[in-house]
């Protein structure tokens, strides 16, 4: 099953992980120090984020570092912009409907 990126971000721990790896690439152990959960739990969150391609694992020597995929995050920003755009379009259409209604009203008043 393809993971849903927004579902991934809905979880507070995963959001915190994103905020941390945004600053620098980190290992699961280093990340786990910031949370009261187990390393296993952090690894599970990382796996979900990786499946969504929000973070990418990088092998460096013996350690695996996770770094943030900035472009993917920017895409989400674009997605938010798109939601705003929906309202813009909807309301431009309403402008047209109102203009027609106004004309009809003026005609009937004459």
């Amino acid at each position: 099953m393809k993971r849903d990126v927004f579902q991934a971000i809905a979880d507070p721990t995963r959001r915190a992980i994103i905020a941390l790896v945004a600053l620098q690439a980190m290992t699961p152990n280093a990340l786990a120090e910031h949370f009261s959960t187990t390393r296993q739990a952090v690894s599970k969150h990382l796996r979900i984020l990786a499946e969504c391609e929000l973070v990418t694992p990088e092998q460096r020597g013996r350690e695996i570092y996770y770094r943030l995929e900035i472009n993917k995050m920017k895409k989400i920003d674009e997605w938010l912009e798109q939601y705003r755009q929906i309202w813009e379009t909807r309301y431009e259409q309403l402008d047209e409907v109102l203009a027609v209604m106004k004309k009809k009203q003026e005609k009937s008043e004459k």
Partner: protein
Amino acid sequence: MDFIVDKEAQTVEITREFDAERDLVWAAYTQKELLDQWWAPKPLTSDTVAMDFEVGGRRFYAMVMPDGQRRWAVQKYTSITPKSEFKFFNAFSDENENLQLPGSDWTFTFTENGDTTTVRVSIYNESRERMEMIIADGGFRKGTEAQLQNLQDLLAKLTADAETAASHAAE
């Protein structure tokens, strides 16, 4: 148009001024023949199957995709103050009006300023983790308003942090 995502309050607020007096704007929001002309952003269309604009009544409608696919939703009117404010509870549904919860509470406020009218729409999400298809409300992608709220602040922070980090790395 003002478009504000408030993570703490779990709301999205959209404010817009229209060049028409309040009676007309109110009609455009509360009569199905008029609503269907503008509610769905092109290329989608809105098809209202049933609508009784009264407290306890509802609008049952579909967003129709260009390929004919339908996404159904129900808006149950919970409060109406004529020409000034109305509220509905919005939820997606199947073609038999079986609701897919959780939903969201919408408040529409109409303010007349001389020849123009300002409409404020406030959308409150019951659940922050609410999963739904914005597509049904005219979007083109999957997601939830609730999650959008979470994202706004996060993205601003992440982008700033990452750009700072990137510029430091480049130095």
